[in-house]
C-alpha cells in the first residue's frame, strides 16, 4: 500500500464526518451515535495503517489535487507526524466514546449542545491532523486557527456563564496568538520568498528580520500553548468544559501549537535560534512546572486541579529548548526523545485523568476535591484509572512519564545543566502532592448526611482505564515507538 495515497484521507474523513454530523443533527440520536462510532473506528484503522506503512516504507509526501508548492497544499508524513496522527485517533476515539455514553445517559434533552458538539469534535480532529501533516508555514497557520476556533466552540458548550466567559477569554488569547504567528510568517515570506518547511530549513540565516519573525511566531505559539506566564486562559477553559472536551483540549489541542514550535526551532530555524533564547524558554517552562504544580496543590475544584496540572506538565515540554539548543549532540538527542515521549505519555495520562475526574464528579454530583470523601469505596475503578494516570504524570516507574523524565534527566546530566535537574525533581514532588491530595480526600469517610453516590455507566471506567493503561504501557515499550518518532528529525541526525 502507498502511504502517500493515504495522507489526504486523514483530513477527508474527519471533515466528511463534521459535515455529516451537521446533516444528522436533527435525526434520532441512535443514527448520530452509530455514524460517529463508524467514524472513530475508521479513523483509528486509517491512522494505524498509515503508521504501519510509514514504518515499513519511510516518510512520504503528498501534493493535494496534484498542485505542488508554493500554490498547492503539501502534506508530509514522517515518523513523528504519523505517531501524532495515531495518538489523535486513539485519544479522540476514546473521548468520543465517553461523550456518546454521557449523551445517552445524562444529557438527553439538551439539544443545542449536542447539535454543535459532534461537528466541532470532528473539525477539531481535522485541524489537528492538518497541523501534524502540514508541510508549510501558512497551512500551519490555517490549522492553528481552525484548531483554536473549534476548541473555543467546544468550550462554550459547557454549562452556563462560566463556560462562556472561559470561551471568550480563550478566544481572545487564541486570536492574538495566531496573529502574532501570522506576522512572523509574513516577515519570513518577505525575506525568503517561500513558506515550505524543507526549503526554509536550508535558507534561514541569523539576520535581525528572521530573528524578529521567529520571535513573533514563538511568542504567539507560547501564548497558544499556555506557557507560564501566558497560561491564564487555560485553567478556566479546560476546567469548565464538558469532560470529554477537557480531555481532548489538555491531551491534544495545546500540543498542536507546541508541535509547530518544536518543528520551527529544531527542524527549520536551527541556525537562527540562540542558546540564550532557549534558556529563557526553559526558565518559563520551569516557572510553569512550579507555579502550575503549586496552584494544583491549592485548588479546591477537582477539574481545575487537573487543568492546573496541565499547565505544569506543559512546562516540561519547554525544558527541551535549553537542553537541546547549544548543548552537545547527545544531550540534544536525549532531550528530543524525552520531550516527545513526555508529549505522548502526557496526552494519554491526562485524557485518562480528566475522564476519570469527570466520572467521579458525575457520581458525587459536586465538583470540589473535598466532596470526594467516600468515593474510594464506591468508585474504585475510576479512582484506579486516576491513580494510574497519576503514576505516569508523577514520573514513577514503570510508566511512559517515568521514561520521559528519565531521558530529560539524562540529557541535563549530559549537558552539565544541573539547574534543570532540580526543576524536574521538584515538579515530580509537586505532582505527587496533588495526586495524593485527591486520594486522601477519596478515602476519607463521608460526612454524615453526605456520601450519596450516583451509579455511572461502566463504559466511563473502561475508557479512562484503557487510556491510563496505555500511558503505563509506554513505560514497558517506549524504545521502538520512540526510535520511529525521532527517526529523520534534524536534531537526531546531527547526533549520529
Amino acid at each position, binding site marked *: 500500500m502507498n502511504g502517500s495515497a493515504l495522507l489526504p484521507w486523514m483530513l477527508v474523513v474527519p471533515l466528511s464526518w463534521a459535515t455529516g454530523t451537521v446533516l444528522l443533527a436533527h435525526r434520532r440520536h441512535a443514527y448520530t451515535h452509530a455514524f460517529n462510532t463508524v467514524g472513530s473506528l475508521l479513523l483509528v484503522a486509517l491512522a494505524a495503517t498509515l503508521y504501519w506503512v510509514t514504518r515499513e516504507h519511510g516518510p512520504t509526501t503528498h501534493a493535494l489535487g496534484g498542485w505542488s508548492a508554493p500554490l498547492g497544499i503539501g502534506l508530509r508524513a514522517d515518523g513523528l507526524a504519523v505517531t501524532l496522527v495515531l495518538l489523535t485517533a486513539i485519544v479522540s476515539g476514546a473521548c468520543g466514546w465517553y461523550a456518546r455514553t454521557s449523551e445517552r445517559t445524562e444529557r438527553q434533552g439538551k439539544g443545542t449542545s449536542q447539535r454543535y458538539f459532534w461537528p466541532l469534535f470532528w473539525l477539531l480532529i481535522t485541524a489537528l491532523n492538518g497541523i501534524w501533516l502540514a508541510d508549510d508555514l501558512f497551512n500551519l497557520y490555517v490549522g492553528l486557527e481552525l484548531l483554536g*476556533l473549534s476548541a473555543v466552540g467546544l468550550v462554550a458548550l459547557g454549562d452556563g456563564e462560566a463556560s*462562556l466567559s472561559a470561551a471568550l*477569554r480563550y478566544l481572545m488569547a487564541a486570536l492574538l496568538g495566531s496573529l502574532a504567528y501570522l506576522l512572523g510568517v509574513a516577515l519570513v515570506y*518577505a525575506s525568503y520568498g517561500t513558506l515550505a518547511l524543507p526549503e526554509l530549513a536550508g535558507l534561514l540565516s541569523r539576520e535581525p528580520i528572521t530573528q524578529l519573525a521567529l520571535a513573533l511566531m514563538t511568542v504567539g505559539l507560547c501564548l497558544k500553548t499556555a506557557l507560564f506566564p501566558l497560561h491564564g486562559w487555560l485553567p478556566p477553559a479546560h476546567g469548565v468544559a464538558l469532560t470529554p472536551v477537557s480531555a481532548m483540549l489538555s491531551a491534544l489541542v495545546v500540543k498542536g501549537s507546541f508541535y509547530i514550535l518544536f518543528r520551527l526551532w529544531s527542524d527549520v530555524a536551527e541556525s537562527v535560534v540562540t542558546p540564550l533564547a532557549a534558556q529563557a524558554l526553559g526558565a518559563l517552562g520551569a516557572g510553569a512546572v512550579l507555579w502550575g504544580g503549586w496552584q494544583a496543590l491549592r485548588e479546591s475544584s477537582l477539574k481545575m486541579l487537573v487543568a492546573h496540572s496541565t499547565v505544569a506538565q506543559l512546562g516540561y515540554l519547554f525544558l527541551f529548548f535549553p537542553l537541546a539548543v547549544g548543548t552537545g549532540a547527545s544531550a540534544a538527542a536525549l532531550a528530543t526523545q524525552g520531550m516527545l515521549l513526555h508529549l505522548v505519555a502526557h496526552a494519554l495520562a491526562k485524557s485518562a485523568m480528566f475522564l476519570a475526574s469527570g466520572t467521579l464528579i458525575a457520581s458525587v454530583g459536586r465538583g470540589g476535591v473535598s466532596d470526594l470523601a467516600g468515593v474510594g469505596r464506591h468508585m474504585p475503578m475510576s479512582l484506579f484509572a486516576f491513580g494510574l494516570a497519576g503514576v505516569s504524570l508523577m514520573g514513577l516507574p514503570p510508566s511512559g512519564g517515568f521514561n520521559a523524565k528519565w531521558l530529560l534527566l539524562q540529557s541535563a546530566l549530559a549537558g552539565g545543566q544541573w539547574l534543570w535537574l532540580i526543576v524536574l525533581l521538584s515538579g515530580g514532588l509537586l505532582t505527587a502532592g496533588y495526586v495524593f491530595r485527591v486520594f486522601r480526600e477519596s478515602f476519607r469517610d463521608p460526612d454524615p448526611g453526605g456520601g450519596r453516590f450516583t451509579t455511572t455507566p461502566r463504559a466511563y471506567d473502561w475508557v479512562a482505564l484503557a487510556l491510563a493503561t496505555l500511558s503505563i504501557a509506554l513505560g514497558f515499550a517506549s524504545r521502538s515507538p520512540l526510535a520511529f518518532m525521532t527517526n529523520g528529525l534534524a536534531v537526531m541526525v546531527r547526533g549520529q
Partner: protein
Amino acid sequence: MSADRLYAYVGAALVALSLYAFLVHTHLLRRLLAFNVMGGGTFLILVGLAQDGRGPDPVPQALVLTGIVVAISATALAIILLRRWFVFSQATALPEDEAQ
C-alpha cells in the same frame, strides 16, 4: 519609497496601534475590533513587504484571501459568544477584567 513599502509601514503602524487597543480595552467588542484592525495591518504587511521591489506576487495575495476568510469566521464566532455572554451576564467585559 515605493507604494508597496508604504503599505507595509502603514500595516506595521496599524498592528502597533491595535495591539495597544487590544491590551488596554476591556470592552469585548472593542477588543474584537482591535483584532480586526490588527488582522488588516498584518495582511498589508504580508502583501506589501513581499511585493516591495519585486512586483505583483500571487502567493501572498492568495494567503491574504485565506486569512480574510479565517478572520471573518473568527469574528463571527466571537460575536455569537459575545452576544450570549451579554444576554447571560449583562456585562460587556470579562469578570476578571472588570474587577481591575
